[in-house]
């Protein structure tokens, strides 16, 4: 069992693989994530990044390998258990509740932190703690002005913000962010980048992003994936200078 309390490693993947039939979407990835660090995962489309995050958040079970989070073996854990342990997730494809209001979306996320929701008698909205956590999440994402608006009626950018707010409302220690800036304009994107910078002071962030400016602005560590394989991990400087990475990925970016 991984003993991670000596180092600063909060999440460790050992020999992690995921196959779909003959396709190895994630191929033997060994990766440690340090606590309190913003660790970005980059790579071309189809590199296996989202599959990798799905393995971390429990939506997929690995075919091989182990995942450890602070001494817990998460390899076979279901998504709800992983969330309860303190790992939060936001999705690339907006995954909110369109028929609920903005506040309701954060509410149900926040309520998950109660010891149990098998409560039948008192009205849910009487719980102050849940309400405060939900509202705080809305404030952080600048959505506090619109609690009663239906999520379906929000703009795409606002929905992306709500996506992150829902994750924040579960008070996670480790945040998995799958392309948080996807489809956002530069102004809204800048707000999210600021938010992530703030969160990075007190949380650990694992980030998949294609927006290289954002990545270079906030990431401490970078990992590059291609075809399911982890090519290299290092600081932003190291990755930028790495020949192997340039050929595989960034080179394509510069000529594009």
């Amino acid at each position, binding site marked *: 069992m991984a003993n991670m309390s000596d180092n600063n490693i909060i999440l460790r993947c050992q020999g992690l693989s995921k196959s779909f039939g003959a396709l190895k979407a994630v191929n033997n990835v060994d990766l440690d994530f340090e606590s309190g660090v913003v660790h970005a995962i980059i790579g071309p489309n189809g590199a296996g990044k989202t599959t990798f995050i799905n393995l971390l*958040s*429990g*939506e997929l079970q690995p075919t091989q390998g182990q995942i450890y989070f602070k001494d817990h073996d998460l390899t076979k854990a*279901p*998504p*709800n258990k992983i*969330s*309860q342990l303190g790992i939060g*997730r936001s999705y690339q494809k907006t*995954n*909110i*509740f*369109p*028929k*609920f209001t903005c506040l309701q979306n954060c*509410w*149900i*996320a926040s*309520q*998950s*932190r*109660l010891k149990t*929701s*098998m*409560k*039948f*008698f*008192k*009205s*849910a*909205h009487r*719980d102050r703690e849940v309400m405060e956590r939900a509202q705080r999440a809305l404030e952080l994402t600048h959505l506090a002005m619109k609690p009663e608006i239906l999520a379906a009626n929000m703009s795409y950018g606002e929905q992306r913000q709500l996506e992150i707010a*829902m994750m924040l409302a*579960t008070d996670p220690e480790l945040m998995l962010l799958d392309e948080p800036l996807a489809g956002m304009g530069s102004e809204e994107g800048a707000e999210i980048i600021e938010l992530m910078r703030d969160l990075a002071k007190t949380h650990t962030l694992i980030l998949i992003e294609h927006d290289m400016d954002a990545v270079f602005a906030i990431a401490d560590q970078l990992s590059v994936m291609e075809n399911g394989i982890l090519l290299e991990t290092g600081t932003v400087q190291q990755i930028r200078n790495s020949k192997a990475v340039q050929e595989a990925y960034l080179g394509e970016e510069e000529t594009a």
Partner: protein
Amino acid sequence: MQKISKPVQLFLLIALGFALWFPSVGDEFYVELLTNIMIIAIFAMSLDLLVGYTGLVSLGHAAFFGIGAYGLAIFFGEMNQFSIWVALPVSMILAALAAVVVGWISIRTSGIYFIMLTLALAQMFYYYFFESKRFNGDDGMFMNAKPDVNFGSIQLMDLSNEHTFYYFTLGILVAVFLFLVMILRAPFGQVITGICANEQRVRSLGYATQRYKHVSFVIAGTLAGLAGFLEAAHTGFITPSYLGWHESGNILVVVILGGLGTIYGPIIGAVALVLLEDFLPDITEHWKIVLGMIIVCVVLFLPNGISSLSGKIFRIPSRIMKTIFRTFRG
């Protein structure tokens, strides 16, 4: 989760008032009919919790209705006196136990599998009562007496009086209604509605969704058992058809007729269907074809049931007002 709008609240209060007043003027036949409607309404509300709020389409809900009924018949059918304080819990507990087992087997699946599993498991119960000689098979069982509602040696209600039974049922209907409103407003209800909307997301937010679905299933089954108890106590005659899949199909029709995902919709649906089933046969022997076509029309044109009409009806006067104001201001 949905707040009940003021117009609907008003409508429900008026309906309650009507229900309270009716027996004093109504014909005995109609009082009995209304009692039947209320029992069906309780049965339908229990299914709405499952289908409308949790999003689990069950085609076997009648099994729990029938188990509640048979629970009464088997243990108390031959007695001349028995207490409701014993009989009702027995029925409900039996239905609850069945729901725990059926739920455990079914909820591991979803989609078409779930629908078919609930149907097939209900059929199992149906055939058990149909083929067993012990419970008279298709001939059915009879109740010798109505349950006693006593407090010590004082009789609180005489359920053999049709009017008393009516009010007793009305009381239970209101209680079940309020119970459902309460649990749906509680944290449990929030999770359930979330599961209906996007189960995967609810799970990733940290909820053990299988457990919540299972609990919802058991609550729904127990309330169906309560309805079955009432039906058995009311008519005094219990047959395996209580558990038949036509019964399950019928109650699903009631829910969609009235309006899915509203607590009061099933009550409207119960009124509509029982009245249809009672009066259509007078028009034609082959009334089931008419009923079938009505259901087809509801599914195609009014998928949110009769209760969705209320929104449309109230919008008309407000639209008229708005046009009037605009012409005057313009």
